[in-house]
């Protein structure tokens, strides 16, 4: 038994990820995961790896390049660095998800908000803890953390090339269904950000559930 086996997702066992928590799940190829934004406008910072070979990981750039479009929604194929299809959005009641904005980290918080935010909890802290505990056998490091998907986040670009952070796309109960094209390792940080109006300064729980269809 490997360290990953206990994370294999099971049918009809929905799980709640509390705000500020992280979650690791293994979704077998061909299976579907539903992510549900229970209270609305929660950022679900998500990294994907090939569970059989963690060196294959989600690439925001290859995904954007392949669809020549910034936002992720139904029909978006999420690709690896090599351009391979890893996972695909097959249903989406939210309508738009971000992959430009990356994840919060203690150090970037000091730039974005104030130097006294440096010790606040962040997505990257969650992931680094996951790498050095649940995933320790794989000997992954910070360099294995590439750019993530922010499910339920809306980051529009203006015609002048400005980036804005808006809420209002997601809402309580909105969900997204993804089908795995490889045996998929999913590492989620349910974002603990308290300084960003995107989530109304109020991080909330989300649900994950494996579905047959």
């Amino acid at each position: 038994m490997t360290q990953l086996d206990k994370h294999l997702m099971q049918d009809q066992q929905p799980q709640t990820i509390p705000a500020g928590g992280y979650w690791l799940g293994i979704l077998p190829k061909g299976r579907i995961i539903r992510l549900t934004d229970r209270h609305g406008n929660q950022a679900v910072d998500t990294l994907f790896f090939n569970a059989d070979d963690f060196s294959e990981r989600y690439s925001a750039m290859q995904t954007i390049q392949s669809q020549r479009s910034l936002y992720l929604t139904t029909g978006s194929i999420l690709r690896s660095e090599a351009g391979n299809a890893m996972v695909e959005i097959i249903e989406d009641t939210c309508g738009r998800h971000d992959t430009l904005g990356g994840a919060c980290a203690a150090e970037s918080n000091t730039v974005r908000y104030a130097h006294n935010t440096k010790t606040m909890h962040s997505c990257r802290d969650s992931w680094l803890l996951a790498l050095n505990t649940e995933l320790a056998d794989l000997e992954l490091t910070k360099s294995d953390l590439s750019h993530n998907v922010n499910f339920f986040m809306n980051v529009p670009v203006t015609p002048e090339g400005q980036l804005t952070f808006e809420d209002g796309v997601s809402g309580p109960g909105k969900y997204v269904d993804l089908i795995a094209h490889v045996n998929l390792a999913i590492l989620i940080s349910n974002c603990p950000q308290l300084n960003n109006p995107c989530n109304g300064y109020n991080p909330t729980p989300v649900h994950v559930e494996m579905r047959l269809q």
Partner: protein
Amino acid sequence: MLSDYSERLDGGRHCSMIVRRGVSLKLTDLSGGSNVGMMIYNAENTTERLNIPDSLKCQHTFKITQGNCLYTDMGRILCSVIEDSAGWHDATSGTCSKTHLDTKPWAKETFQESRNDFLRNGQDSFLVELGKYGMSAKDLVANMNWFSRVDADSEGHLALAAPYPSGTSVTLRFEMDAIVLMHTCPHPFNDSLTYPKTEVSLHLALSDAVAEDDACRTNCAENGRGFTNTELYYFGR
């Protein structure tokens, strides 16, 4: 003794160099319509590297131009854009891979056939240069595409804008000792019928100390804090 340094880079080639804090790197598009793919790493700890999402969101920008800074994942500034006659450089489209290059209508020229005019792709170019510093595929992250403007419509659809003319330049002032990887392979959205072989020049010079009222430092409050973080890193040296 070296007081400045110039180099020309043909189209479809790659190179890398260490650029020290306090040195400026001016890129000039000699042909027009060039694309310079660039990745940047902290030279003394390569796990710290260019982070495009952090750079964009902290400056509330999608494009990179004069006044902007490029940040690492550790909240520090690798370089500042102190001059830019283009106005809009792409940071989100990534780089062209071999698989992607094969989808283009371009001749499949190999070294055997074309010697050093064989067609290179941006991803392999980065992988070659990464290898020189002990890095590998896991160190590939979002890169800059200098001289390429990519517009997004309200639905997020992307389009490569008309090329900039010859003579267009952009100057980066380095705020950290950095490993800089560069290639002149085409932008992934370049749909021209032939592989664009355009030439750029690189010019390195010593820059002045960053003043308190420096235009990049004062461009937004976030950049002020970014400069403080960077100065803290070198404090006492």
